[in-house]
């Protein structure tokens, strides 16, 4: 393929490029244009003067952040909660996908898949309400336990137990949805491999171990890298709707901290600076996990 000009390719695939416009515009408008606002982190942002006219403050914002105990607590909690999510929550959809894949009765498989996807479409506000109703000290579950003669459990009021509740509720919401990619990867595995294994006398577990899992390995690695890259980023809705004042030692994460100081106290410089810090850490994690994975012989994201 020789050196054909740019225009050749545009002409050749103009429909494809045309379709690309929408996502590119989206990225430009919502991911790149806001980068302009990063300078708020380095300025004494005055909401009335606007971003441009506010004076630079010589890293004062960062000084303030790094001397705040609450900030480090939020960072630690974010890492702990995301780390646990990675350890406990990451394998869950893989296991679930394997189980689903092994089902032979198609209708049963379809129904259970649909049921597993459903929680993904519930808003965290609603889940937060359900969690409060179910797990609070006089909630449904504790009432049941007490009625059966047991002692109520502090699902939401003890900080350690709260972390467990947080993780399990997250798995409940996301595991089903997470199986989609793995199931798609599994359909790509050559059936002949299974037949050959069967001929060699491999049982069900042998087949899973030697064929299914290696078959979806690239998918697992890529999703792992993506999740590692997000280890400092935590969504806002999940902790915010489940946390309460008793468990803030473990429940206060970066996103809720930013909401509190950045939006509620209108300290936009502080909020932006924390966001920037968070993004930089995420980038470092993403690059290094990608690098490690390539070194180990797998394909990275790029």
């Amino acid at each position, binding site marked *: 393929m020789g050196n054909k000009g740019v225009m050749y390719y545009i002409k050749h695939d103009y429909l494809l490029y045309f379709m690309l416009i929408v996502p590119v515009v989206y990225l430009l408008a919502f991911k790149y244009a806001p*980068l302009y606002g990063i300078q708020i982190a380095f300025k004494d942002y005055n909401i009335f003067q606007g971003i441009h006219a506010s004076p630079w403050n010589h890293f004062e914002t960062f000084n303030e952040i790094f001397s705040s105990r609450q900030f480090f607590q939020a960072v630690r909690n974010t890492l702990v909660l995301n780390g646990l999510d990675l350890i406990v929550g990451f394998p869950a959809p893989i296991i679930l996908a394997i189980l689903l894949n092994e089902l032979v009765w198609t209708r049963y498989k379809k129904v259970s898949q649909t049921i597993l996807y459903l929680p993904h479409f519930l808003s965290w506000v609603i889940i937060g309400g359900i969690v409060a109703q179910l797990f609070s000290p006089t909630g449904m579950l504790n009432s049941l336990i007490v009625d059966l003669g047991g002692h109520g459990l502090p699902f939401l009021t003890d900080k350690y137990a709260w972390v467990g509740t947080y993780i399990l509720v997250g798995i409940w919401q996301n595991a089903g949805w997470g199986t989609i990619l793995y199931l798609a990867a599994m359909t790509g595995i050559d059936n002949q491999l299974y037949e050959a294994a069967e001929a060699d006398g491999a049982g069900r577990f042998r087949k899973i171990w030697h064929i299914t899992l290696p078959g979806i390995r690239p998918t697992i690695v890529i999703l792992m890298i993506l999740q590692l890259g997000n280890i400092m980023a935590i969504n806002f809705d999940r902790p915010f709707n489940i946390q309460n004042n*008793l468990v803030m030692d473990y429940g206060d994460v970066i996103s809720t901290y930013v909401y509190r100081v950045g939006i509620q106290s209108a300290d936009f410089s502080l909020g932006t600076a924390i966001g920037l810090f968070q993004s930089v850490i995420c980038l470092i994690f993403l690059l290094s996990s990608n690098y490690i994975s390539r070194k180990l012989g797998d394909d990275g994201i790029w």
Partner: protein
Amino acid sequence: MKVGASRWISMALATLMIVSTLAACSSNGANKSSDTEPASSTPGNTASDSAPKEHRTLTVEVFDRGKPGQPDLNNNYWTKYINDNFGKQYNATVKFVTVPRSQEVEKLNVLMASSDAPDIVFTYDAGTVYKFSQQGGLTDLGPVLEQHGTDLVNYLGEEILKYGKIDGKQYAIPGKRTVLAGFNTFIRKDWLDKLSLPVPTTAEQFYDTMVAFKEKNPGNVTGVIPFGYSLNSATPGLGDLIEAFKPSNLTEQQFATLQPNSVRTPPWTMPGYDKAVQFMNKMFNEGLISPNFTTDKDGKQLDADISNGKVGAFSTNWDGPYRTAPGNYTNLKTNVPGAELIPINPWQNDAGKHPKQGYSPNGMFILVPTFSKNADLAVQYLNWMVDPKNTLFLQNGEEGVDFNMVNGVPVQTGTTTSGDKMMTVANNLDYDILSNGIELGDPQKNAAAISAGYPGFEKEVEEALKVAMTDYYAPYYFSIPNSAEAKYHGQLTSLSAQMLAKLIFAKPAEFDGLYKTLVEQYMEQGGKAVEDEFIKNYETQNGQ
């Protein structure tokens, strides 16, 4: 070839990015210059008051309280009245911009930052007002008031206007608060009667009563909650209970600097506050307090528990149960026939008094952003609102239709509880922003009229107000705003909520140590700075 294409795309991206950045930049600059213009020219172009030439639109903030069945807040009976009267007279359209009541400050910040805020905005949060004023976002209304606000100035007087002055400039017009009462404690009278117990008059008696409620369960309900409590993260506190533990002999400086706003933020260093929290801790550990007080973040569970007759006593706004929303007392009476709630005064201090911190005489702060081109019209609007005729209508509706005058006091006929005329808050305070509470131009009439604003509970409300005003005191007036408080208020409030949760939840044996460490953290994270500045301001103000 692939490389070439992607390079081309990335170059295009980069160019676009730079262009968009520059565009954003320059448009920002342009905005800036056009923003400052009207503010400076405002006093000039408003010389002709009587003959408004061009038609103008005045935008005004209104609280959206999310009350079920509420009408369109920008198009209903009240907005029509405003537009038919003020609008006609001044050749203007008044448009209302809704702001959710519970996110008042957050939403206002965003509106201000994007220059989308209406011409008239308001907030109860003094720290926000201070911050806006320091950033140059508020119009100095002094000159405008002089020109267009004669009635307004006469109505409010220096006594109230002083609350809106910062650095000698009138950045805010404070509303007038006609009801200064803060909190009340309520108890189930029918439960007391059933157990033949007296009305508790001290904290110890109150405690004994709660124990009796727990043990004897006079309401015969499952999951009895002797003392209902919910911890709200936005305004964490213990209500009027703390007064029983506060020494009566505080010096004026202590009075001023240690409890500037004890209704809304816990006064952690005030002598006796630890005892008050410990009292709650003890009650919680004995199962006398709502077990869900921390997960009940919005107080909805507490409302439900009160309505379902599970709660024996609780401390809330002086008129809390009588309010039509959420209508706890009405619901309680429906659910539990014979239930009776009465306001009581159990928090007796060491001098035998029942002091209660109430509100300062100012209501909310009404502000005009600097980017508003209608500062003159805004003041004219407020000036129009002061007219007793308009105040009466906005707060009560039309005479003979929505209310009848009985002994000089308007009594509601019940037309304003639903539909187009629905008031989302008693006396329509969201539209009549200048007065916080009914205003008939005479304090005595006001007091008599307040109760009329609670159809069905007139007698009870009269009594509740009397109880709430027993030994009332206002927070100390500071002429100098506290910049540390403005800065740390948000963080300290959420920290306070966490501290209260932990301290009430703690094992009694660990309480003292925990209180000490937590308060140390609090002081370190800004509490000290706030307190020091209060002391400094107090000394400056009193010339020491």
